[in-house]
C-alpha cells in the first residue's frame, strides 16, 4: 500500500515541477495563419475522413451534439454591403498545462512523451469532466454508437479506432501520422524531419494556412513562424500554454495593422 501511494505521489510531483512539459521528446505545434484562411472548410472535411468521425445527423446536432473535432468559427460584422467575415479554425489546442488533465478521475487524458495531450478511449468512462474543464470547447462526446452504413464503412481509416458510445474524444494532431513518420524514420535510422508529418487538416488546406512541426527543433518552419509579431494564442490569459499558435489577420486599411 505504501509503495502504491509513493508511486502516485511521484507521478503527481512530476506535474508540480515547473517546466515539466518542456522535457519531452518533441513539442508538436500547429501554426495557423488567419490571414491565409478563407474558411473553406476543407480541413474539417479532411478531419472527418481521416479520423473516422461519425456524422451525427440533424436531430443530434440540434441537441448540440455536433461532432467535428475541428470546427471553423465564423464572426460576421456589419450589414450587407459593408460586411466583414472572420474565420478561426479551432481544434484541440494541446495545452501544455491542460485543464482537462487535472479533472479526469481515471487518468484517461494525459500528456505523453511527445508533449501531446492525448485521450485513451479504452480508459474513458465518460464523466464529462474534461469537456467541462476545457475552455476551448473542443472535446466531443459519443452520445451513441454511430453506425457506418454500407458502403461507407469501406472508407474508414484502419489506423484509427472507431469510437463507441460513452467515450470522450478530440483532435489528436493526427497521432497516427506522427507515429507512422516516426516508424519510417526509425527504419531509416534518422530523426523525424521537419515537414515530414502533415496532419489531415494541414495536408488539405488549399491556401497553406496551416503548418505543423516540432517547436523544440529551432530550424523548423514552425519555430520560425512562432517568432512572427502577429502571433497569439487563444485565451492566453488562462495560462494553459496551448500548442496551437495563431497569426493575426492583416487589415486592409493601407497601414497593414493587425486585427485585434
Amino acid at each position: 500500500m505504501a509503495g502504491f501511494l509513493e508511486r502516485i505521489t511521484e507521478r503527481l510531483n512530476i506535474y508540480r515541477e515547473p517546466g515539466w512539459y518542456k522535457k519531452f521528446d518533441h513539442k508538436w505545434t500547429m501554426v495557423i495563419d488567419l490571414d491565409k484562411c478563407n474558411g473553406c472548410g476543407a480541413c474539417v472535411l479532411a478531419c472527418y475522413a481521416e479520423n473516422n468521425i461519425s456524422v451525427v445527423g440533424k436531430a443530434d446536432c440540434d441537441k448540440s451534439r455536433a461532432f467535428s473535432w475541428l470546427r471553423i468559427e465564423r464572426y460576421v460584422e456589419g450589414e450587407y454591403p459593408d460586411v466583414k467575415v472572420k474565420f478561426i479554425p479551432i481544434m484541440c489546442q494541446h495545452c501544455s498545462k491542460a485543464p482537462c488533465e487535472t479533472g479526469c478521475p481515471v487518468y484517461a487524458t494525459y500528456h505523453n512523451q511527445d508533449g501531446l495531450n492525448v485521450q485513451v478511449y479504452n480508459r474513458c468512462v465518460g464523466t464529462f469532466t474534461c469537456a467541462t474543464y476545457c475552455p476551448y470547447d473542443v472535446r466531443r462526446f459519443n452520445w451513441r454508437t454511430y453506425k457506418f452504413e454500407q458502403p461507407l464503412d469501406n472508407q474508414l481509416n484502419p489506423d484509427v479506432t472507431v469510437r463507441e458510445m460513452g467515450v470522450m474524444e478530440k483532435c489528436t494532431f493526427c497521432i497516427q501520422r506522427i507515429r507512422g513518420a516516426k516508424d519510417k524514420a526509425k527504419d531509416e535510422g534518422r530523426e523525424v524531419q521537419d515537414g515530414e508529418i502533415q496532419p489531415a487538416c494541414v495536408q488539405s488546406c488549399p491556401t497553406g494556412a496551416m503548418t505543423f512541426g516540432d517547436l523544440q527543433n529551432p530550424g523548423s518552419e514552425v519555430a520560425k513562424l512562432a517568432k512572427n509579431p502577429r502571433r497569439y494564442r487563444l485565451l492566453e490569459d488562462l495560462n494553459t500554454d496551448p500548442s496551437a499558435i495563431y497569426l493575426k489577420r492583416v487589415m486592409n486599411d493601407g497601414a497593414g495593422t493587425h486585427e485585434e
Partner: protein
Amino acid sequence: MKKFILYIIIGAVTFMMGYTINGLYSPDISPVQPIPFSHKIHAGINKIPCMYCHITAEKSRHAGVPNVKRCMGCHSIIRTDSPLIQNLTSYWEKKEPIPWVKVYNLPDHVYFPHKRHVKAGVPCQRCHGDVANMDRITRAVVPFGIPYLRVSPLKMGWCLDCHKNEAQKYIGTPVKNGTDCWTCHK
C-alpha cells in the same frame, strides 16, 4: 463432509475436462483452415524459413499471408498428384484468394507493427509458439497431446511485461516509451 469433498473433486475434474476440450476445439484457438496446410511439413521437416512465405513481416505492420502465387511457385512442380494440392491449384485457376482464417487476431484498437519486433530480434516462436511442430496452427501449447496453456494470451499485461523486462534481452534496455498508451493503442 465426505460428500462435500467428493463434490469438489468431481467439480474439479469436470472443470479440467471442460477446459481441455475447450482448448482443443475452441475455434479461436485453432481454427479449421480451408486447406489443411501443415506448418510441420513446410517449416519443420523441410526447414523453409518463416520469411520465405511471410515476406512482409520485416517490412510492414502485418506479417502477411502469402499469396497463391507464392504457393504455386513450388506446387506447380512439387506433389501435383496430391488431392490437396489439386485443391490449391483450383484456387489458382479460379484466380481466387484462399480464405485463410486468422488465428492471432488482435483487437481493432491495437497498433502492432510486426517489423519493429522482427527487427529488434524477437524470434517468431516467442509469440507464435513452436510452429514448426504444428500441423494446424494452434494458440495452445500441446505437451503430451493435451493443450492446456496458450502460447501468447494477447493481453495487455503480457505485452507490457515484455516491453519492460524481456526487451532487455533483445535490445539491452526497456522499450523507449514502451509503456505509453499511444505507442500501442490507436
